[in-house]
């Protein structure tokens, strides 16, 4: 067994290589989460609507996104956005657009289940009180759907955070890229990958513990 040398891991490394990548990973996760939930909720409402011309485009979009590997979606957007807009787009910005569009499909499936978990009588009660469709959804159904699905939405966000490492494919500078770059520059790739593993594990495991606690609290209230 060859000796591991972790001496290159110091504060300077963190500020020079990792911080920038970490900030981008978190940024990407948060923007894709908020955007994904907003668009995902719209997609879910479209899929549950009775108008076929609202229903089938949403269904097609969600099913297509869900049947293509994320890496291929990242490559597609990186190729297509400059092709369609005529302007080159940086890997980071392209990643943000891609993840928002991709995650919307997954969040929409969660929100669809969430909306369906609200009893039908609630919708009728809303209409009976004279609320419009928009008001019923906004004031009655969606808050409950959101609350019921909160743990699953957050679990999906942890998966999203893990998946942001796939921007490796287009060379965007995320947390993992910070580690691989540092590993290459210090000629210590093995140690860099080990550290990356530990950092990702600590972040994701603590977040998943938080979600579990939240789940337990919500379960009691219900």
């Amino acid at each position, binding site marked *: *067994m*060859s000796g591991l040398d972790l001496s290159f891991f110091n504060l300077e490394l963190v500020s020079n290589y990792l911080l920038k990548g970490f900030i981008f990973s978190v940024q990407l996760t948060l923007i894709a989460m908020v955007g994904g939930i907003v668009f995902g909720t719209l997609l879910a409402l479209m899929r549950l609507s009775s108008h076929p011309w609202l229903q089938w485009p949403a269904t097609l979009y969600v099913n297509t996104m869900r*049947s*293509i*590997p*994320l*890496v*291929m979606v990242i*490559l*597609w957007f990186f*190729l*297509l956005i400059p*092709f369609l807009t005529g302007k080159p787009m940086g890997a980071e910005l392209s990643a943000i657009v891609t993840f928002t569009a991709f995650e919307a499909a997954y969040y929409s499936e969660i929100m669809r289940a969430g909306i369906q978990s609200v009893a039908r009588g609630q919708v009728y009660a809303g209409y009976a009180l004279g609320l419009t469709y928009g008001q019923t959804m906004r004031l009655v159904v969606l808050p409950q759907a959101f609350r019921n699905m909160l743990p699953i939405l957050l679990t999906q966000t*942890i998966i999203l955070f*893990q*998946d942001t*490492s*796939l921007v*490796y*494919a287009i060379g965007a500078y995320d947390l*993992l890229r910070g580690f*691989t770059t540092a590993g290459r520059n210090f000629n210590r*790739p*093995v140690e860099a*990958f*080990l550290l*990356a*593993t530990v950092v*990702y*594990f600590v972040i*994701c*495991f603590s977040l*998943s513990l938080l979600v579990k606690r939240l789940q337990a609290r919500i379960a009691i209230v219900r």
Partner: protein
Amino acid sequence: MNWEWQFFLRDIGDGETTYLDWMISAWGWTLAVAGCAWVVALLFGSIIGTLRTVPNRWLAGAANAWVELFRNIPLLVQIFLWYFVVPTLVPPLQQVPSFIMVVLGLGFFTSARVAEQVRAGIQSLSRGQRNAGLALGLTLPQTYRFVLLPMAFRIVLPPLTSEAMNIIKNSSVAFAVSISELTMFAMQAQEETSRGIEVYLAVTSLYIVSTMVVNRALAYVETRVRVPGYVGGGK
């Protein structure tokens, strides 16, 4: 825009292989990685998932730790770990081809997800089934073998189907360690031919076809093994 598909019949520079040949061999690699990793995932996932439900606290704890470990590290990082780190720490593994290391990485990652489904399946059975088995004088392993697992596996077939489709999609990360599979082909062919849209369309279709075939095949298995009166049995 104008389509240009003829480049698929051009050779890639070695005088004998065309891009089409290359893509088909890449499809083979994708299926090989996904298929072998699925065997690993199903084997380990079933064992770990079962162990999570046994009364022995140590066994169940170790199995839970396995799941948490493999679930909380991004797949790409795990692939790098198996490809770069493990062979350095365990020198005898340096002789093992990278294909095997990627299969192990993808397999263990998916095993955690399979284990989660298997555990949920076993726990969804009523407590009485286990007690009835034990009351009949079956040992605990026999109760699992003859009473619990046959029902649990039928219940978890639909989620396992989507895991099997996921493993085909997830095999795309093997590009990062230079396995010549579909995504790797897509990236390189795009660069060499500048016909990115055609290349990506072809590769994306192959992924969709592969996952659809798996989906239909497992749906067929599902109808063949269903038990009347239980989930899916009445369809």
